[in-house]
Structure formats: C-alpha cells, structure tokens
C-alpha cells in the first residue's frame, strides 16, 4: 500500500478536492482516487473528513458518495482553485522546456503558446529553469517500439572507443540509466553477443523487417580485464568514468574493463592524472601510444 499522507498533505488534497468535485460532479470513487494518485481507502478517508468540514459546525459541506459516485454541495467558500506552488510551477516549466526543445522550429503556434503560458504562470520563475533533451524524441520512439515488439533495429553508432562510425543490426532488450546517461542493452548481430550502446551516440535508428529474428540472448561472456591504477589527481573524474572500482588504498584502485582499447584512451586522456600500473603489457601500450603522439609534435 502507498504510504499514508501527512496531515498537511491531506489538508492540501482536501482543499484541491473541492473545486475538482464541483467541476466533475458524479465522478466515480475509483476515478477520483486515480486522478489524485492515492488508493481507494485514502480517498474514502478524505471524503469522510471533508464531510465533517464547513463554515461552522451547523453548516457543513454536503457530500454524497454512498452510491460510489461523488457529488458535492454547499462548499462555495472553498470552491476556488488554489494558486500553484513553486514546485508545481517548476514541474510545468521543465516539461514545457522539453516540449520546446523537441519542437525545435516546427509548430511556431505551439512555441508561442508555451511562451504565453510561461508568462501567465510566472515570468520570474520561468527564467530560473532550463531543460533540454539528451536524445532526440523520434529516435527514442523508434527504440521503444523495437523493444516492445522485440523487432530488429538498424542503428548508426559512433563507437568512441574505436572512434568509428558503424551501421549495425541489433535486437534491443532494454533501456537503462547510469551516471546521467541512458544506455540501450541489445543483442548485436555484428558482434554476435550482448552489447551496451549509449543512446546519445546512436545517430539514427530504423526498424528492419527480417523474416525470422529468432535471436537468443546470450549471457555476457566477454572477458573482463582486471587493471590496477594509481590516481595522481582528479579523483572525481576517475569515479565518474569508472562506475565500479575497488579501493586498494594509497590512491590505488582496481577496475574491471571490457575494452582495453577504451581504457588506454582514458588513461592518456587523463593527461597524467591516472597511471596504469598493471597489467604491464597495457602499461607499455600507454607508453608506446604517448610516444606516437609526441612524435607528431617534432
């Protein structure tokens, strides 16, 4: 069961119930509970409480809900829609910003309506909020459809580790969120195994119709490499780059990586903040690549 409301939350809901019921006379108890996001017991408790309220104890609000449908009378004094709280306004502004971001330059009529709404609700507050999409909505829609229908998707993907753009056919499994980024886990027909794709690196996606997409999802069997590192600076970046690590003390850490190429790039990109200790062949690879870069500047 949902958690019980505090008296203040309940009072707020009671005050909001009144104008809502006036506008929706005869609404079913079930529907009312759903609209207010509480369960049936809670809304019944609300109605029973509201029934005891009124201007004086001899002039109570008249509520009728025995039939399972709710009617209200004699509550004119609070038949007023309460002003929006700051949190409510901000929740609207974030949403409007995302809609605006998705519209781009399309539908100037809607863009104008959004601006009108913002200035009607609170022009001062509107400037304190800003939101944009990390991934385009049409791309997400395509991916969601493919997940739901278990169909195949052809994607264009920018693999940062190899710095390559590739087209591959995948069977999407699920979307996951980690460290502020959305990922798609999928069975990749190119790699013939399960792979994780960062959504913002997929530049295009379209469903493909292949006769029998009977692909079995395999367990992750890829070999992980254990690597020990020493952190000389920017430990925050280290922790944000490697979501799982083990602290060994003395600024030393153990991480497990799927892709050594990616790891070596991360070590070099840290500009000396991360030192790769072991395995030695990877440590030598860092050195070798650094010399290759240095030779470009001679």
């Amino acid at each position, binding site marked *: 069961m949902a958690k*019980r409301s505090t*008296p203040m939350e*309940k*009072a707020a809901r009671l*005050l*909001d119930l009144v104008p*809502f019921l*006036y506008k929706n006379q005869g609404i079913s108890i079930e529907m009312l509970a759903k609209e*207010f996001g509480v369960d049936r017991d809670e809304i019944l*408790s609300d109605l029973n*409480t509201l029934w005891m*309220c009124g201007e004086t104890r001899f002039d109570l609000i008249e509520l009728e809900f025995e039939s399972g449908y709710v009617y209200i009378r004699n509550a004119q004094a*609070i038949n*007023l*829609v*309460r*002003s929006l*709280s*700051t949190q409510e306004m*901000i*929740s*609207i502004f974030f*949403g*409007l910003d*995302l*809609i605006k971001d*998705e519209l781009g330059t399309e539908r100037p*009529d*809607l863009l104008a*309506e*959004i601006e009108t*709404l913002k200035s*009607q609700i609170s022009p001062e507050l509107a*400037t*304190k*909020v*800003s*939101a944009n999409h*990390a991934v385009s909505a049409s791309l*997400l*829609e395509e991916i969601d459809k493919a997940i739901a229908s278990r169909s195949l998707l052809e994607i264009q993907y*920018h693999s*940062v580790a190899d*710095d390559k753009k590739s087209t591959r056919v995948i069977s999407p499994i699920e979307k996951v969120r980690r460290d502020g980024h959305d990922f798609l886990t999928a069975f990749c027909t190119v790699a013939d195994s399960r792979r994780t794709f960062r959504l*913002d690196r997929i530049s295009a996606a379209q469903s493909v119709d292949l006769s029998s997409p009977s692909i079995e999802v395999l367990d992750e069997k890829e070999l992980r490499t254990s690597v020990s590192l020493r952190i000389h*600076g*920017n*430990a*925050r*970046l280290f922790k944000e780059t490697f979501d799982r690590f083990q602290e060994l003390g003395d600024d030393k850490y153990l991480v497990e990586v799927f892709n050594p190429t990616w790891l070596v790039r991360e070590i*070099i990109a840290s500009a*000396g903040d991360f*030192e*790769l200790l072991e395995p030695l062949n990877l440590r030598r690879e860092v050195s070798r*690549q*650094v010399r*290759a870069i240095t*030779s*470009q*500047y001679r």
Partner: protein
Amino acid sequence: MSRKSERLVNLTIALLATSRWLTKSDIYRTIEGYSGDLDAKERMFERDKEELRNLGIEIEVGSFDPLFEDEVGYRIRPEKYKIQISKLSETQFSLISLATKMWRDAVLGSQANTALLKMKSLGIESDAEELPLNPQRLDVSDENLLHIIDAISSRKVISFGYFNRDSISQDRAIEPLGVGTKNGYWYVAGRDLDKREIRLFRLDRFSSAVKDQGRAGAFETPEDFVMSDLLKSQAREKSCRIKVRTDKAHALRKFSTVISSEHDWDILDLSYASQDQLIRDLLWHRDDVVIVEPLELVADIKRALERIEAAHG
C-alpha cells in the same frame, strides 16, 4: 490524524468566508478542534498558521481599529488564495498536461500531478487536442532538487557537501538562483559565497542533503539571470586549429569547420569551452589529432604528454 487536517480545512474555510477580521477567540469558539487551556490553543493555532503558509496560503493579519491594537484579526483574501490563471485554451491545457506527465515516478511527480489537477479544476475540456509529441521522461529522483527549488523561491541560502576535483567532500554555501538539466545531467546555479561568483553545481556531485541557512529573502536574484543562458555559456566560445586524420575524430568534427584537406589529413577549426577538457579530448584521439595553433596549447599538450610518459616510463 484526520482531525488535524479537518481543523486545517475548517480554518481555511473560516478565514476565506469571513468578510471581517477573525480574532483568535472567534476562531477558538467556532472551529472545532482547538482544545485544552488557552496556551495549548495558542500553540495549536500558531502551528496551523505555519502549516497553511507552508501550503502557500497567505494569511493576512490586521486589526479592527488601527488606533486600538489590542486584538489582531486574521483572514485569507480569496483573490490571493486563488490561482491567477482564469482560462486556458485547449492547446494550452494539452501542453500542460503533456508537460506534467513527463514527471511520472520522478521526484516532482506528485507536484506535477496536483498542478494538472488544478488545471482540470479550472474546467477545460479534457478531450483536448492530442499533441503529436513524445518527449522524454524526466527521471531525476534526487530529493535535493525539491529542497533547492523551495530555497530558490524563498531566496534562502543553502549549504551542502560537494565532491571537489579530488573527490573530497567540501562544504559549500550558495545563494541558489536556478535549476536545469542538460545532456542528462542536473545542475543548480548559485552564487558561491566563498568564491563570490555564480557557479554551476552538478546534482550528482552533492555528497550530502541540502540544508537551509538563515532566513528567507536573504538575497536578490540578479535581474539578468537566465538559467538557460548560463547552461549555454558552458558553450564553446574559444577556438583552435587542429589537424585530423581523414575519417577520424568524429566526436570533434561535430564542433569543427573544415578549413582544408590534404593527403590523409583535414585541417579544422575546433571550438571548445574549457582548456582542460580540450586537452583531454585531443589526447583521447591519440595520434589521429595534432594541435596546430595557438602555440600555448601546443606547449600545454606537450607538457601533458611528458607527464603521462613520466608516470608510465
């Protein structure tokens, strides 16, 4: 528990319905639930007033006769209590409906729902235009966001722990000015009281719950403050010239213009925001990218290469 909410509602009705100031004794006499001796009643009333104010309900205090301030009275003005929007078009309603639905299961989910309920209570056709849009959900669950929003609106200084570059938690105190999300991260903008300048803080780098410091209305928001401008100002305003192998460094090409191409190399002008990040980005692309100008950057990258070499040599 329902007795308390009942009392709060009755108090609201009484203060809204009255055409004159209601004194405390009026209130204790007519509203059920104020019990005990006078001290107990006073304490209950003080708490109730505070809770209604927390719900955003403005209670006015005044007196019958300005010459005799012996007993003050209370009331709520309906025009202050009421939402300022009188009418929404169907399209506007559809937009708000869509905007609030993005919060489902996220930290402002219940607030978004009550906002939508209020709009529905204004009486707009519920079968309004279906917008052909499918925006992404807002899936932030960080409770700090709620606290920060309240502090922005009440203009209270807040303090919190924040992981610095070395991943060590440091105490920060800011005058919070705005919140925003960009590329999947959530940011708070605020004037850092130590550094004495407006800075951005990433919500996922907070190491503690946000705490209020001091009273409401403690600072003014700069008039020209616009959150979206601040998030944009992280944008790439500086530029440098680089040499890139053909068909390599796609991530950098997005922010570049091609100046010329020869053999296996392209010459690009790359725009960037921070120098530290630029060096990291260039190093990431290994020997596929060479910086040409300005010379200070060439010197910087050489120093960085020496550091890596020294660590791994």
